[in-house]
């Protein structure tokens, strides 16, 4: 089930009346093959999140097409859009804001199972236990009845990932899923995201996490893709000045630091 984005352009009105239009996406084309993970990298305002919104059907492009498994996403309406949203799920940046504070973990995970898959109460109950196991929240009994505020940031983000996986999607769109987590928790969530087998569009400004998660990488600057290729190649041999600037902004201590005594 591949995603094909072709010549997509999106403009927004400026802040004030009479301001020029802001181009958030400018003739963007890329594909994601089944099971592939692709990183979309750029700084704030580069248009990353706008592309995510169009891929998930929350916005329509002004020009160009978005096709998922043969279906024109940019033309979906009502019921079709609802069906599409089962197949394409999102993981958000702020796991606290993404979870209803009054819903237990079990309730949060049951809803997509009932709404999208039509599971019975009993089947949903069993499936929730499996999902919690998948995202490493075990023993299940310890987490299922917790409310979001009773969990740590990393645990919350695992619940968000479990919820995204619940309706058996074919594509995950993750928008900065680890940027609000402590560094010690990031590797675990990144492992989880890259190990699902589901295609992944990974949106970030963090080159290290892109390297860890993604097979291929697209660098976005002012709405345009300025560089793309296998993640390793783009990072090790950047050709575009903007990609180089992003790499230069990395703290240097880890470049070539020979560290002694790691455990």
């Amino acid at each position: 089930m591949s995603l094909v984005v072709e010549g997509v352009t999106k403009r927004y009105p400026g802040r004030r009346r009479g301001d020029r239009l802001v181009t958030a996406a400018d003739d963007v084309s890329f594909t994601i093959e089944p099971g592939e993970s692709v990183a979309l990298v750029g700084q704030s305002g580069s248009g990353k999140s706008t592309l995510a919104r169009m891929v998930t059907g929350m916005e329509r492009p002004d020009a160009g097409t978005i096709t998922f498994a043969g279906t024109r996403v940019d033309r979906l309406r009502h019921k079709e859009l609802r069906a599409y949203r089962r197949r394409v799920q999102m993981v958000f940046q702020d796991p606290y804001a993404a979870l209803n504070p009054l819903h237990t973990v079990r309730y949060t995970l049951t809803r997509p199972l009932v709404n999208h898959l039509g599971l019975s109460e009993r089947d949903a109950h069993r499936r929730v236990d499996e999902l919690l196991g998948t995202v490493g929240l075990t023993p299940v009994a310890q987490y299922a009845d917790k409310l979001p505020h009773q969990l740590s940031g990393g645990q919350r983000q695992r619940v968000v990932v479990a919820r995204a996986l619940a309706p058996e999607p074919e594509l995950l769109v993750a928008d900065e899923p680890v940027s609000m987590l402590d560094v010690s928790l990031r590797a675990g969530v990144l492992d989880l995201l890259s190990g699902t087998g589901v295609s992944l569009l990974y949106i970030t400004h963090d080159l290290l996490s892109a390297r860890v998660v993604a097979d291929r990488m697209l660098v976005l600057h002012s709405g345009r893709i300025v560089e793309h290729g296998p993640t390793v190649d783009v990072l090790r041999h950047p050709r575009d000045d903007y990609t180089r600037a992003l790499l230069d902004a990395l703290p240097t201590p880890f470049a070539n630091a020979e560290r002694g005594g790691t455990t």
Partner: protein
Amino acid sequence: MTALLAAEDVNVVYQPSGGAVVHSVRDVSLTLRAGEFVGLVGESGCGKSTLGYALTRMLRPPGRLESGRVVFDGTDIAALSGDALRRLRQGGFSLVLQSGMNALNPVRTVENHFVDVFRAHRRMARSAVRTRAVELLTRVHLPPDTLGRYPHELSGGMRQRVVIALVLALEPRLVVFDEPTTALDVLVQKAVIETVKELQRDVGFTALLISHDLGMVLESADRVLVMYAGRIVEDQPAAAMIRHPKHPYTRALLDCYADPRAAEVRISGIPGSPPDLSVPSHGCSYASRCPLVETGCRVAEPPLADGVACYVTGRA
């Protein structure tokens, strides 16, 4: 170099009405020498911001200094209040907070912010304020016309530069930066930190940079303090810490980072979670997550000695 600020056995607790007492900062002693650039690094909830507040006398209820002394240039600032404290805010110590957006008043121009700061501390004519403000804005690489702007007309990076210029207005000898670039974009973050370093060099104030980002701190600071569960567990020059981290926690934190350009990239996390600081603990607070833990570690909290608070790695 002489000590500009010395904290001795500082303990800070949060005591919400009806809630459990949280021991946020525990037995912290540290010294900042004049002109030094020190980093304070740790993860959410480790007490680093609380310590920053304690050092600049910015703690607010339900937080309070339970015990210990904070001595700035010979004066115990915990005992100060009112006018004496105000006098020390000029030419003394200042705090820069994370979000410049929230620190600035949305209905006042940048110029008015300078007027407020100067008038609160000294008599100054409007024209003199303007001249001095332009000088300060130039130092943080902002154009003079920034004076007439409102905060919403400026980008996040520009707003944080304005906040830094305002802090410099009173010529502090110590500036505590609490996550000054966390809300900013990567490229902007780099530029703001470079400006801070340049100012620290040229103006000569002492800087304490508080951040969760070990990479950024190691790159900017001369000396780095690592905080875990309310205590300082490692204190080393940055260059030494990169090569020979002493505490198992620092080592584990470094393993969470890598250079994405390397041929092989592997990052790891730290299993488990930090202890609940509302529950009294016995022994080393890192013991439950530590790969080097020994039985002795669970008996008493290891003291900070030779730059590390660890019975196992401190022996070597």
